[in-house]
């Protein structure tokens, strides 16, 4: 069953225009809107939750894409991006100002549960309190961390200068070993009066079962709190799950992340716009080409340029090859978590290697591609690439997809393990801001390539596969179907592949980006990868934020796992297809 968008009444106002939305809000809450422009609607902080609820309930802005914040030195600004899944189109931006001293804004978790982890991230890195948040603790950094690193006055260890390029590198660049450059000669800063030896982590973090839950327990057993990970191979990286168990049944899961945290946002702000490109490879290292594309699209929005035809086609080909190989490996990993150790995964790896060979021959690297540029791509593809790609797309990959479906989807053991397990209902999937195959498996026909077509996706004929129940089985077959759709796009793109330039304008090593802000996004294999970039007109971004689909999909994990067995929890986690490089950033 797929959900089709209802036909809008003929005189419905265009809610993709923030000005019109602002007028609508004013009719209901006359004092709520501070100002509005094409860049977004600034809302009074005390009425934020009412406005959000109004937008959610009455204007059908049911999906919270992104929550982030900007430090304007005299004040903080919290930025929300909202979309209507039915209407599609670009997200509108909602902004709230917070004072520089003790900043606080109302939490949106009661309206959008997807704000949970994102608000915690903003609190963690920017130090803005969200009043009414059920669990406002640090998420990426540890509890004993001092300071809020995304504030402009924060200086990290190894701090050299505000912006790259650093003056010490040229023209008197006598090399200094990195350790000697650290002004604190140590990587860790503690709060004042902090005793690292005596430190005990706060005990109230452990989830306690409430009375109602305890009464519902059928087994006469003690509640066990199990720390699952962070090095367990089934956690797909350094993820820790604090699981509350009743016997073998899961009663609560709390993902604890941040082991791979490097503050990608802060690195991005120190970097130049061009220099950020290779760093985006390292977000979700399975899909570096698609990450590059989303970042390039965002900055191109600010620059106001478009790549030439050939480059657009190359971009689409690369992004779709990425999707195929990512899904193939993700399916293999789900089987791995089910207990079919490595056979399907290694089968999937074979085609993945061939696709990575193509990436390597073009971009120079298998995984860290660093291939897209603002206004084009770094290198042209060769005829050999096209020939190999055509063979893969027309012969090998369709054959492999069929095979993979035959030995994975047809298996009855898989059916009994996957059907009606880890159900994420449609409304919950939307409310949790899940994205990509997870959202579509719950029956939401939403794909950014269709809802807000970027690059040249509007030229291709492809379907958006959806599931019905939102269980593990659906998440599996939606991925298989998406692999077929990717091949469909690839076939069309290779048939239409034009000759010509691959770059608009001259290559510039320090691109100055006009003043402004943009939220750009792309449909990554894992979901919506968004970049929120604020430029102050220089070669370095003033604010650079990444909306990681893996991170936000993880918000829904607790609701998907409760009531199922611990062995199911591992597969449910696998079906989210997370990559820690993107979760922890």
């Amino acid at each position, binding site marked *: 069953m797929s959900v089709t968008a209802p036909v809008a009444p003929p005189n419905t106002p265009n809610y993709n225009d923030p000005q019109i939305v602002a007028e609508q809000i004013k009719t209901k809450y006359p004092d709520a809107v501070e100002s509005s422009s094409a860049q977004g609607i600034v809302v009074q902080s005390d009425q934020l939750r009412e406005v959000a609820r109004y937008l959610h309930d009455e204007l059908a802005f049911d999906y919270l894409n992104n929550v982030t914040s900007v430090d304007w030195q005299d004040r903080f600004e919290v930025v929300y991006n909202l979309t209507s899944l039915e209407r599609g189109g670009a997200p509108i931006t909602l902004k709230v100002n917070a004072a520089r001293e003790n900043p606080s804004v109302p939490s949106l978790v009661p309206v959008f549960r997807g704000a949970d982890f994102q608000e915690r991230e903003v609190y963690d890195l920017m130090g803005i309190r969200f009043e009414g948040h059920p669990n406002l603790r640090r998420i990426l950094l540890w509890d004993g961390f001092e300071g809020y690193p995304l504030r402009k006055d924060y200086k990290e260890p190894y701090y*050299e200068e505000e912006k*790259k*390029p*650093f003056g*010490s*590198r*040229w*023209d*008197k*660049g*006598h*090399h200094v*070993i*990195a350790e000697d450059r650290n002004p604190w000669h140590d990587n860790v800063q503690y709060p004042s009066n902090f005793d690292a030896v005596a430190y005990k982590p706060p005990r109230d973090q452990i989830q306690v079962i409430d009375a109602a839950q305890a009464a519902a327990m059928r087994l006469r057993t003690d509640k066990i709190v199990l720390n699952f990970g962070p090095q367990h191979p089934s956690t797909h990286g350094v993820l820790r799950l604090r699981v509350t168990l009743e016997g073998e049944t899961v009663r609560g899961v709390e993902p604890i992340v941040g082991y791979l945290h490097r503050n990608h946002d802060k690195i991005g702000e120190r*970097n*130049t716009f*061009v*220099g*950020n*490109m*290779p*760093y985006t490879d390292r977000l979700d290292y399975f899909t570096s080409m698609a990450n590059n594309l989303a970042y390039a699209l965002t900055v191109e929005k600010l620059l106001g340029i478009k790549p030439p035809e050939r480059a657009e086609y190359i971009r689409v080909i690369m992004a779709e090859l990425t999707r195929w190989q990512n899904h193939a490996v993700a399916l293999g990993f789900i089987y791995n978590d089910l207990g079919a150790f490595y*056979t399907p995964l290694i*089968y999937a790896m*074979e085609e993945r*290697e*061939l696709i990575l*060979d193509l990436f*390597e*021959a*073009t*971009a*120079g*690297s298998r995984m*860290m591609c*660093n291939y897209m540029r603002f206004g084009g791509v*770094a*290198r042209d593809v060769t005829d050999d690439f096209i020939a*190999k790609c055509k*063979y*893969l797309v027309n012969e*090998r990959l369709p054959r492999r997809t069929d*095979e993979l479906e*035959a*030995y*994975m989807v*047809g*298996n*009855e*053991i898989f*059916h009994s393990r996957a059907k009606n397990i880890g159900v994420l209902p449609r409304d919950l999937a939307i409310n949790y801001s899940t994205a990509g195959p997870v959202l579509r498996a719950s029956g939401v026909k939403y794909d950014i390539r269709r809802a807000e077509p970027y690059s040249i996706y509007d030229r291709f004929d492809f379907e958006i596969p959806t599931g019905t129940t939102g269980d593990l089985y659906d998440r599996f077959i939606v991925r298989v179907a998406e692999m077929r759709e990717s091949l469909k796009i690839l076939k069309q793109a290779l048939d239409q592949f034009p000759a010509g330039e691959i770059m608009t304008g001259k*290559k510039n*090593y*320090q691109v100055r980006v006009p003043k402004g802000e943009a939220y750009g996004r792309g449909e990554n294999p894992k979901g919506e990868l968004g970049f929120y970039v604020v430029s102050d007109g220089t070669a370095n971004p003033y604010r650079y934020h990444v909306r990681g689909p893996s991170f936000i999909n993880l918000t829904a994990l607790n609701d998907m796992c409760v009531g199922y067995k611990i062995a199911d929890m591992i597969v449910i986690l696998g079906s989210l297809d997370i990559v820690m490089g993107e979760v922890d950033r």
Partner: protein
Amino acid sequence: MAFGLGLLNGLKYTATRVFKTYVGDFKHLGRRYDDKLFKERQSVKGSGIFTVQYPEEKLPVPENFRVVPFLVYEPALDENGKPLIDPATGKEMIGKQKCTACGICSKVCPPQCIWIVRALTPEGKPKPQPAEFYIDIDICMNCGSCAEFCPFDSIKMDHVYELANYERHVSHIYDIGVLSKPASYHAKIHPTDWAAEEAERAAKEAKKK
């Protein structure tokens, strides 16, 4: 469908795979590591066993492959126009560094791992030549931006990927001596790029005349 048929159908594919790997083995009979068969196995049309028995077998690196940059220099020539060989190292002797110490690579480098000291004339004026040039390969992320944005084609990405070492403080800081490689090496590993650069240079010189 009766329970278990889907499972058996799946096992058909795994059985085929197992069989195909033995077909490969029979082809290999007597020649454990065979270049021709290896190439066939690794091509897009290959089937059967796919594993690369590293280090006995190594995948060929494509021309665009990139790890750690190197500096291109023009070798010193003898009277016949042949490059002079340094008897101590066996390398071609440095005639002229192509690098002009303009600093673009160190400015564009995302992790800032390139350090350049510009040479000075005896009068103390800056000279378009590097006096010192360091790359901290522990920090280098092999992104290739330096090679991409160098206006003089003097810094290029290498193909040597076996960089493991016992010690990291001295041997992982590449100085100008380690980094410098002759133009002939660049031409050997990047034939297409080299041809394009030569053509461009020839066109420029023709324009000058």
